[in-house]
């Protein structure tokens, strides 16, 4: 496994294959990239409004639906102006399409 271990107990940003962006503390993972995130929030991007933060609590994401797990640079993250960010939500990934 390509060392997600290094991210355990760190803040991570997960991009899922349905196009969502979820930030949380990585609590666990396994060989098929099932992951557990604590204190999650979803970051909902929209072209007309700033980024909406939706609290989700404790989340278990099945490996099939994971695209990217990124380590969040806390300092840089807290300097971002989410209220002013405008972007299309990420597209969904359709496997085999």
């Amino acid at each position: 496994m390509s060392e997600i271990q290094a991210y355990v107990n760190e803040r991570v940003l997960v991009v899922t294959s349905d196009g969502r962006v979820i930030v949380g503390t990585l609590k666990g993972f396994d060989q098929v990239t099932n992951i557990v995130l604590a204190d999650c929030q979803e970051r909902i991007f929209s072209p007309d409004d700033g980024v909406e933060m939706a609290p989700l609590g404790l989340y278990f994401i099945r490996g099939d639906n994971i695209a990217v797990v990124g380590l969040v640079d806390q300092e840089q993250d807290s300097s971002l102006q989410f209220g002013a960010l405008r972007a299309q939500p990420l597209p969904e990934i359709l496997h085999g399409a």
Partner: protein
Amino acid sequence: MLPLSLMNTAKGRPIQVELKNGETYNGHLMQCDNFMNLTLREVIQTSADGEKFWRLSECYIRGNTVKYLQMPPEILDLVKEERFQHRSGRGGRGGQRGGRGRGGQRGTWGGRGLTLN
């Protein structure tokens, strides 16, 4: 911590399951296995658009249709407690699922059951 042991710990508690097709199921987790097949009791099913609701007394969800599970935050602490109990109970190695994984060629995974995060 392994995701599937967290799921096991959530047995008997209320969880929310979102399927790949966007439907959600809220109910008490009764059974689960390593394929992530689940049975829930006292379920509220919500359609993908959030418009329609159904009450089901019981339902079975095939693991490969699951996208996310949302669980009560307290179970994170319970997993840790359970693991300690397992360890003191049988001299330490491995936990519930010692035989998992794919044979011997991947030695790096051997000690995984013991990591504490």
